[in-house]
């Protein structure tokens, strides 16, 4: 029987490496692509960055993000730290409320809720590697330049949703240099 040559062995190794590379590339890139698509949808292709966008009650027609909860009032803010830190404020309300931060790879790297912040959330978000700012109860480092801030308020009925909408009306997601510092 003919023995496998070095060339044959090399080809087998290359095939295995190519298979693994293809597999890992898809698995690794998928969350980044999903987040990029979500950020484009939420920010209307970049037209509404560093500002809250308050969602309506989720229904079958809510198609921006998969598995929306019909029992929560969600607000989202696509942040971009290219020009410096971003300030995030979320008023306290009646019932569960949280503010969560998502990196460009989809990781939920920070979350604070109304139990941790009973007076509401006051936060400054800055980019890793940049000088740490001050002036807020919470100062959080983002592992990526862009990402999403998501605010959730418990609102399982139309009345509760109206309450949540009133509570979030004056919430802030804006560059630190704008508005109240």
């Amino acid at each position: 029987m003919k023995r496998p040559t070095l060339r044959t062995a090399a080809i087998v190794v290359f095939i295995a490496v190519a298979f693994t590379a293809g597999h890992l590339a898809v698995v690794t890139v998928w969350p980044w692509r999903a987040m990029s698509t979500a950020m484009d949808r939420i920010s209307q292709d970049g037209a509404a960055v560093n500002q809250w966008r308050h969602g309506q009650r989720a229904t079958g027609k809510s198609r921006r993000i998969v598995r929306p909860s019909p029992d929560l009032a969600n607000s989202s803010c696509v942040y971009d730290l290219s020009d410096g830190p971003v300030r995030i404020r979320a008023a306290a309300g009646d019932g569960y409320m949280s503010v969560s931060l998502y990196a460009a790879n989809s990781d939920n790297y920070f979350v604070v809720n109304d139990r941790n912040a009973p007076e509401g959330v006051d936060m400054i978000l800055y980019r890793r590697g940049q000088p740490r700012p001050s002036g807020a109860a919470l100062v959080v480092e983002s592992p990526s330049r862009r990402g999403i801030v998501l605010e959730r308020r418990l609102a399982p009925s139309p009345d509760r949703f109206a309450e949540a909408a009133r509570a979030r009306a004056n919430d802030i997601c804006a560059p630190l240099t704008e508005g109240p510092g």
Partner: protein
Amino acid sequence: MATTPRFRWIAPALAIVIALMAGAGSGVLVILKGEQISQSSHDYWLGNRGVGSTRADPWTRAIIARIGLLALNRSETIYFTRYRDSEGRPFNAACTYEVSGTDLPARWWSVTIYGDDDFLPLNEDGAYSVDATRAVRDASGRWRARIAAASDGAPNWISSRAAGTFNLSLRLYNPSRTALDDEATIPFPAVRRLGCEGASS
């Protein structure tokens, strides 16, 4: 016929390209069939401790990005998804089900229906979920919800109209320490098929 040296690498190069594409295809397959590699299962409720975590492995991160983008990490919320009834049959909007249980060990909980596209079903019934604040309970504290296209007077109703082959999400917001430490202690809701259109149950 002897192969000229110039063309000796065509077949191996082609094999490598095919391997690259097959690897990519296997990645897509894993992501699309995510529930099959879930890390925990409790009576068909599938959970994954890596949801939202900065320490999630790449496969978990990719699967969650497809079926639960912007999910909270486990310290804030535990999520479970269920695709099958108590006898392992896939959910189908042509059938009627009963989901029942007791209050769950969390500050707030909900059971929500989603279509196979992972969005709420396209109907106008406004009955996508049952949750801790609205569930009607009996004297013993148990709740039962009907999953069907019509409520038929049920005190708790989740509409499966236009839901196709649907699935259920269980959310536990601010779960108890015991639930976080040992998911097996969670009294998971049971889901029983009551019957199907045009067939015996």
